[in-house]
Structure formats: C-alpha cells, structure tokens
C-alpha cells in the first residue's frame, strides 16, 4: 500500500464517521431527505464562494456553502409553515431551484470557474492526496484530510456535549421542550452540522456519496438495533467498512471510488435488509406466515370447543366447512398435535385438557378486548411455533 492509498482510505473513513453521526439522528428524526436537499443546494454557495476565493478548500467557501445549506432548511420550513404544500413537496421544490441556479452560474462563467458540476456531485477521492497542505514549506498531509478531520472533531465534541439533549429531543420533542431544551436550537444545530459535513466532504467524496454515507449506515444499523448508542456505533462501523472495502473494489475495477463506496453501502444494506434477525424481510415474512398459521390454529381450537357433535369435529370437516386448503388444514392439525392441544381418534378431533385451558384463556382475552395478551400466552403454551 502506497502512502497515497493509505491517505485516501483515511479520508474516506473519516468522512464516513463524520457523516454517520448526524446521519443517525437524521434517520431517527425522519429527516433523511433533508440531507439530500442540502447536498444539492450547497452548489450555489460553492460557486459564489469559488468566485470570491478561487480555492475549493477555503474557509469562506465552506462558510458560504454551509449558509446555502441552512438557507435551504429555512426556506423549506417557511414554505411548510404557509401550509400551501406538504413538507416533502416543499423539499422537492426548493433544492432543484437552488441547484439550477448553481448549474447556471457555473455554465455562464465557465471561463472563470474551473469547477465541474460532476466534480461537486461526485467528487474525486483519487485526487485528494495531491492537494496538500503546506505550512511554511512543510508538508502536513492532504488538505481534505485536515478539513474532514476538523469537521469530525467538531461533530464529536458536539455529540458528547449535547448527547442527552439530542437523544431527548429526537425521541420526545414535547418532553424536551417542557424540560427547557429548545427544540428549535437543537434542530438548527443538527442542520448546521449536517450542512458543514456535507460541504466539507463534497470536495473529497462528492455530494451524493455524502447523502449515501449519512443515510445508508444509519438505516442499516437501525434494522439491527433500537439502542441509540449501539446504533451510532454500528453506523460508524458500517460506514468505515464500506469506505475501505469500497476503495479496494474501485481499485480493482478502476472506477469511481465514491460510486464504489456507495455500492458497498448498498450491498451491506441489502444483506441486512434481507437477513436481519428480527427486522429483516425474511424474518418478517417468516413471522407473518407463523402468525397466520397460529391464528388459524386458534380459530380451529375455538371451533372445537364450541362443538361437541362428532360431525363438526371430523377431520374432513375442516376442508368442507371451514374452507381451508388441504395443506393449510394439515399444517394446522400437525401444529395442534405437536403442541398437545388435540388428540385425533378415528379422524375425530377432540381437545386435550391443555387445549381446553388454552382456548378458555384465549376466549377470555378476546371478550375483554385484550387480544394482544394472546401473543404472550402463546409463549406459555406452545412448544412448537407455526
């Protein structure tokens, strides 16, 4: 590994961490699309800043672009407050307009500005190590490493300083407000940090990757845990993992690093989306199927309890009267048998004492409108689940 390669991976990892922290809160606060809006609408700020300074790394440019990001948030909120359109429409109206202004500014001044819209959207991490920070002739490393590092430091300090406030206002706005934490200040603080992170990172990795690095690791982590600290930790791990593996994938493919990191994030999310233990799609589908069978079982047991006639309790009756398919009735019967709820004698089904007890309790819960309790009851009675 050459020096430049290490530096690229370092920058990518730092960006990933710096994005994962505000990203987690954005996802939890249902404001993920705001980060997309910010990442687009910082463009006019960048262009104007570049006009003035002619340097992509200058603090004035970062300040102006951050301002553009905050202006977006304010505008979106203002439009929402008028009640003329819904929140999401407001977002969708503001950022394309600002982005268009940026694109037109660039195109109109193409001779003065050596700024490519592609570069703003996509960044080029591969060139980041070439732009070095020189202080009185001493090479201190790549400029973007310093910028991203500084932003990360600020983010971490703010996170530790205001963790309690952030947590409270994220999960219970009303309580936070009544305890005297101003939700408005925390909201705009978070928005400002998101803007700064977006601006600081776009130079290295591009605006779109910033969005991906903010939302994807947090969303992936959210599928695995509901603990805020664990979620923060996991999203940082996912971010850094994608950054490093993405770099090598791009290296192997000889393609855009930003695109490749995003792809790694996508693969990671897809895996977790499918296979997460409790909230993954497969687990959810399995649970839904299980619950369907168990509901059928309950219906069947209730039916048995209601009828003493042999005709109503005959196995074939299941197919004929309750209109179940063969497979379905077979699964239900087997499940009931395995759990010792019923005995089948000469194709006549009758409840065991355990089955009777279960059914009686279930009826109690149903008539007292406490259906939810049945879920807990199942744990006591079922040896095997559906």
């Amino acid at each position: 590994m050459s020096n430049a390669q290490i530096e690229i991976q370092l920058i990518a990892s730092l960006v990933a961490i710096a994005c994962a922290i505000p990203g987690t809160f954005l996802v939890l606060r249902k404001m993920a699309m705001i980060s997309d809006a910010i990442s687009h609408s910082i463009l006019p700020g960048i262009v104007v800043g570049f006009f003035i300074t002619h340097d992509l790394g200058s603090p004035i440019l970062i300040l102006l672009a951050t301002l553009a990001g905050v202006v977006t948030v304010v505008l979106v909120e203002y439009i929402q407050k008028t009640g003329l359109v819904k929140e999401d429409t407001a977002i969708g109206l503001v950022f394309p307009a600002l982005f268009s202004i940026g694109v037109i500014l660039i195109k109109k001044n193409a001779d003065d500005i050596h700024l490519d819209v592609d570069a703003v959207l996509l960044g080029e991490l591969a060139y980041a190590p070439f732009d070095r920070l020189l202080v009185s002739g001493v090479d201190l490393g790549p400029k973007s490493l310093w910028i991203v590092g500084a932003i990360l430091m600020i983010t971490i300090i703010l996170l530790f300083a205001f963790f309690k406030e952030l947590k409270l206002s994220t999960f219970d706005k009303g309580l936070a407000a009544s305890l005297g934490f101003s939700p408005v200040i925390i909201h705009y603080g978070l928005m400002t940090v998101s803007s700064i992170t977006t601006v600081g990172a776009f130079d290295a990795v591009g605006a779109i990757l910033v969005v991906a690095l903010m939302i994807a690791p947090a969303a992936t982590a959210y599928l695995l845990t509901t603990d805020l600290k664990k979620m923060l930790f996991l999203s940082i791990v996912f971010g850094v993992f994608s950054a490093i593996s993405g770099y090598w994938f791009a290296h192997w493919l000889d393609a855009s690093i930003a695109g490749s990191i995003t792809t790694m994030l996508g693969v990671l999310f897809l895996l977790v989306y499918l296979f997460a233990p409790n909230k993954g799609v497969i687990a959810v589908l399995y649970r839904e199927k299980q619950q369907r069978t168990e509901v059928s079982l309950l219906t069947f047991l209730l039916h048995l309890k209601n009828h003493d006639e042999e005709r109503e309790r005959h196995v074939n009756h299941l197919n004929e009267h309750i209109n179940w398919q063969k497979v379905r009735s077979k699964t239900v019967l087997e499940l009931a048998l395995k759990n010792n709820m019923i005995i089948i004698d000469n194709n006549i089904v009758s409840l065991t004492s355990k089955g009777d007890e279960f059914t009686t309790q279930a009826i109690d819960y149903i008539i007292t409108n406490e259906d939810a309790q049945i879920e807990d009851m199942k744990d006591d009675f079922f040896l095997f689940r559906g």
Partner: protein
Amino acid sequence: MDIQEYFSLVFSDYTLRTITLGTAILGAVTGMLGSFAVLRKQSLLGDAISHAALPGIAISFLITGAKDSNTLLLGALVSGLIGTFWIRGIITKTHLKSDTALGLILSLFFGFGMLLLTFIQKQPNANQAGLDKYLFGQAATLVESDVWMMAIVTGICLFVLLLFWKEFKILLFDKDYAKTLGFNTKTIDILITSFIVLAIVLGLQTVGVVLMSAMLLAPAAAARQWTNSLATMVFLAALFGAFSGVFGTAISASQNNLSTGPVIVLVAAVFVFISFIFSPSRGLLFKQIRFIKNRRDLQLHKTLAFMYNIAETHDDISHPHEIKILNNFQGFTKGTLKKLVEKNYVTLQGSTWSLTNEGFKSASNLYNQLTKNDE
C-alpha cells in the same frame, strides 16, 4: 439570438421546433402525472426514481453496447421500477420511514450508476461518450423520433388517465372507501406509480437525473394553489408544465452557455412562486390582505362594543361623551372612529361622540351574528 428571434424561428427551424415541442410535451405529461404524485404525498418519489434510473441506463448500455435512446430508457424504466418497489418494500416490511427509504434508494442507486458509468468510461469502446448527458440532460440532443416517443407515451397516459379517472380519483382521496367499493386498489396504485416512473424516465434525456423531480413537482404545486378540483388541477399543471418547457427552451436558446434543464426548472419555480403569492384563495398576498381586513373589523367591533357599554349606562343612548375617554381603549384609533361615523353608527359633535339608534342596535346584536354585513 434574442427571444423575439426565437419565436420567429421556432416554426421554421428544425432543431428549435423539435426541442420546443419535446420540452412542451414533457412538461405537460410530467405536470399531469405530477399532480397525482403531489396529492398522494409522494413528491420526493420522483427524485428517488430519477436517480434510481441511472444504473439502468448504464447496464442497458453495457449489455447492448448501443446508445439508442429508446433501449437506454427501457433500462432506466426497469431500474426505476425496481427502485420504486424496493422503496415500497422497505416502507411496508421494515420500520424504516419513507424518507429514509427514499434517501437510501436514491443515493445507493445513483452511486451504483456512477460506478458503472465510470467503469464504462474506462472501457475501450469509443461509443461510450455522451452517456453523462443523462446526468444533467441535454435538450439539444432531442431528435424527432424522441419527440414522437414522448407524444405517444403522453397519448397513452392521457388515455389511461381518462379511462380510469374515477378510480384514480377515489384512490387519491379515500383509499379505504375505494377498497370497500371493491376496486383493486393495489392494481390502480401500481398503474399510477408505473406511469409516474414512465414520465420521469422520458424526461431524463432532456432535464437529467438530478433535476427531473422538479419537473414533476413544480407545475403540480403551482396548479394546486389555483383550484380545489382535481380535473382543473391536472389540466392547469399540464399547462404550467408545457409553458415552463417552452419558456425555458426560449430563454436558454436566446443566450449562450445556458443549459435547458436548469432554466426550465427555474421557470417552473417562478410559476410556483407566483402561484404561492398571487393565488386568490390560498395565496400569501390575499391571505395577508384578508388577515389585515379581519383585524380591522375586529377593532371596529371592539370600539363599537366599548361605546355600547358606556351608552348602556345612560337613559338616553345618544347622550354625548368625550372622545378622550376612548383613548385608553385598545383598538380605538381615529380611523375606526371615522369609519363608525361613516356608517352612521356614531355622530360627532366637537370633541364628543354619541351613539345613534342604529349604532346601538347593531352593537347590541354584535355577538348575536345578526349583523353579518357589518363592516
């Protein structure tokens, strides 16, 4: 070329005519379908879909190796649909919220698309140049066959829209009711979403991935301000969209170095801006005027009520009182007094005022809602 020249050339010049027609049709169809997206609170879906279309374009180029816009758009359509249904899957099957799902799919698909695009650029195939026009769109590359394609799709959209108008409408405003009536809401839902995806994909070549969502939203958001009727809104949105297309093309053609996509978006944004402010029933301007008028009415009523309370204590209701005693009362100004005199509720004599019979009557009925025409 200035704008006048543009309009004289638009009917004779092939390129200009094609582009203008193309953007106009595009604006109309996106405006039309955008109305549904906006009303279904799926405004940002367009943004996600347009970004999600990018890998489709790259993959269909990788497979066919051809740059025929129809095949590329077919790829875009497929990947846009995959993106849309994945978003839906995330929202229904997990506890992630819609904004997260949208942002996720948007950025992941776009990043993957960029990976493929940069990968294609490194390929030893001279044909690959120009794929990046789908990023920001290049209306100038429109040819007549593209416009025909747009016209046909618009025609189909219009046909389906008219055919299923009732179903779309009921799904839009009362989904549960539609279900109880026996409509297959899932099919209608998929149908309308697919058409939205189709409209977005059509616009990629002209406006580009990044700005396409605004084409969908802006005309619809503008149209929403002028009417409460769905039919009128769809019609107005189509109109606004078409005009944004034409004006945008005109402005960008009349200047150097102006790309068409962003200008169209800005023109559409101007439409929205004007609608937000000047729409008679919802607009901010008239709302403010109504607000001020209401406040003035209230002040007038308060003054009258105060006078009534004073006059009530006297046997003669027209007993004159000093104006000075009103001064401490909040809401009293010379203006309100003058207005009351104009209405003949109060007469002035030197520095005193007295309530007239008429004024006394309307004041006593002030809170009985009998004086509706009172101003």
